[in-house]
């Protein structure tokens, strides 16, 4: 019955948390869309850095500081290489939210004005909505939305119509929807935006951990993602930017390390990427993220995707066994990342998640930081099961069992 083939990964043992038991039951973690669990190599890299190589970066003359510098630099190089980017245009932030805010403040305030428009989609995460609302309100610009259809897809025709209006300065889209799972054709969107003279930003939070991502090939001007969803630590995010744009931009956060020189009334800026990294960066977290992408690279992102796609297909199939359950978005695993948002007639998503937890199954319930999309779907919340490299068909079976048991508790 499980769909597993050569593509199947068997890596749960690499993740210490799965040794835990909850009321004697193993952990069934189906909330990787929210945050991923961490392999031992990542925890060890992070802790090992603190134990053996901790110093501040960028300035220390002594050997220990040079180790810290080398660790931080090499983490950046690995992270950049993992996504096909250059180290100098790979900026570490604290999360993808900060990365998008960086663009909204430092690029947006200088480049979006009255009469201009920012174009996003109905399926964005709040992190890719609210910064643009704030920017547009401040600058007298308009925030417009591309619609999402029944299958969770965008219309490139609508994109063309919007771009043809000639006022769009920025197109900001998610790479993979955190609610619908939709894989968005971001390279095509970035190309059309560019042809229309608009800058593009892709929110890759749900893409980078789950499929091979080549930011060079995608060709967006900005590509942002977040470490903690990619097997890395919390406290670190990534912004890849196009060099010419980053060079023309004023900095965002200011202070130490991002300057070239400071006098009483003015300062000049450091070179890329440091111009955008003010203050002491999360060095051990960068080292941890470096270990995470190295681990993913060793697994092979194509295998990761194949594994998760197969498992998603299995999940979509198995969820059909639950009466009254409806999955939002496209029905084929091929068209989506490794997640399924669903509702069950007669049960609120919070109760679904609570009852799943009775069986040791972790799923998420709520608006998933996508309230505008929820209103399009006509619900206030959904339950969501999302997959990581460590999941197995048995996890899906456990989910379905708890859903069926939950229905019984509710007398359905």
């Amino acid at each position, binding site marked *: 019955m499980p769909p597993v083939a050569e593509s199947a990964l068997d890596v749960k043992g690499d993740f210490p948390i799965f040794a835990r038991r909850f009321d004697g039951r193993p952990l069934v973690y189906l909330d990787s869309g929210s945050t991923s669990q961490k392999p031992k190599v990542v925890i060890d890299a992070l802790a090992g850095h603190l134990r053996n190589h901790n110093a501040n970066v960028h300035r220390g003359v002594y050997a220990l500081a040079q180790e810290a510098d080398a660790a931080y630099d090499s983490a950046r190089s690995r992270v950049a290489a993992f996504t096909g980017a250059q180290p100098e245009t790979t900026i570490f932030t604290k999360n993808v939210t900060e990365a998008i805010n960086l663009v909204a403040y430092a690029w947006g305030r200088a480049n979006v004005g009255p009469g201009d428009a920012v174009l996003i989609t109905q399926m964005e995460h709040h992190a890719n909505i609210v910064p643009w609302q704030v920017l547009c309100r401040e600058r007298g610009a308009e925030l417009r939305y591309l619609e999402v259809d029944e299958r969770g897809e965008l219309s490139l025709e609508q994109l063309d119509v919007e771009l043809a209006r000639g006022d769009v300065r920025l197109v900001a889209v998610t790479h993979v929807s955190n609610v619908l799972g939709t894989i968005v054709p971001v390279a095509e969107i970035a190309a059309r935006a560019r042809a229309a003279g608009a800058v593009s930003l892709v929110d890759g939070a749900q893409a980078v951990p789950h499929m091979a991502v080549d930011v060079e090939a995608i060709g967006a001007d900005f590509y942002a993602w977040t470490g903690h969803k990619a097997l890395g630590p919390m406290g670190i995010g990534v912004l890849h930017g196009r060099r010419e744009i980053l060079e023309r931009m004023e900095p965002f956060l200011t202070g130490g390390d991002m300057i070239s020189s400071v006098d009483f009334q003015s300062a000049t800026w450091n070179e890329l990427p440091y111009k955008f990294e003010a203050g002491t960066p999360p060095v051990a977290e960068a080292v941890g993220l470096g270990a995470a992408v190295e681990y993913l690279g060793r697994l092979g992102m194509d295998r990761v995707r194949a594994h998760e796609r197969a498992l998603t297909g299995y999940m979509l199939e198995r969820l059909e066994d639950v009466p009254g359950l409806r999955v939002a978005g496209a029905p084929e695993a091929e068209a989506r990342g490794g997640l399924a948002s669903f509702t069950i007639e007669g*049960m*609120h998503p*919070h*109760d679904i998640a609570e009852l799943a937890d009775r069986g040791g199954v972790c799923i998420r319930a*709520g608006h998933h930081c996508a309230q505008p999309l929820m209103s399009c779907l006509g619900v*206030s919340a959904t339950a969501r099961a999302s997959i990581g490299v460590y999941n197995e068909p048995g996890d899906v079976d456990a989910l379905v069992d708890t859903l069926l048991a939950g229905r019984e508790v509710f007398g359905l």
Partner: protein
Amino acid sequence: MDDLYRDYILDHYKQPRNFGELDPHDLEAMEHNPLCGDELGVHIRVKDDRIEDLRFHGHGCAISQASASIASEELIGMELEQVGKLGADWMIELLGIPVSATRRKCALLNLKVVRSAVTGDHAWPA
């Protein structure tokens, strides 16, 4: 039997008491639970400084709906002054089930909206 989803909880969830609209009404409010986006509204009719009648409307999880339903039976007839003083403990005790930190807001949403209608205070009951 489930700790949380006791029979009476599910019963109040499925057949919530005092749900609907109340027109005309003297007081009203609408509040939402930021965790899930659920909204709950209330209409209150006042007589002699007491809640003469009350109706909740909106949707939510079993905990929030059952809380609202159970509370409604206590709230009708209560002095407004007393309503303003009701705290989280009152609601949690009334509900009679162990509510986790995460679900607390579900259980307290109805009290929040009632207090908001009566006192204008939008804070979560403490």
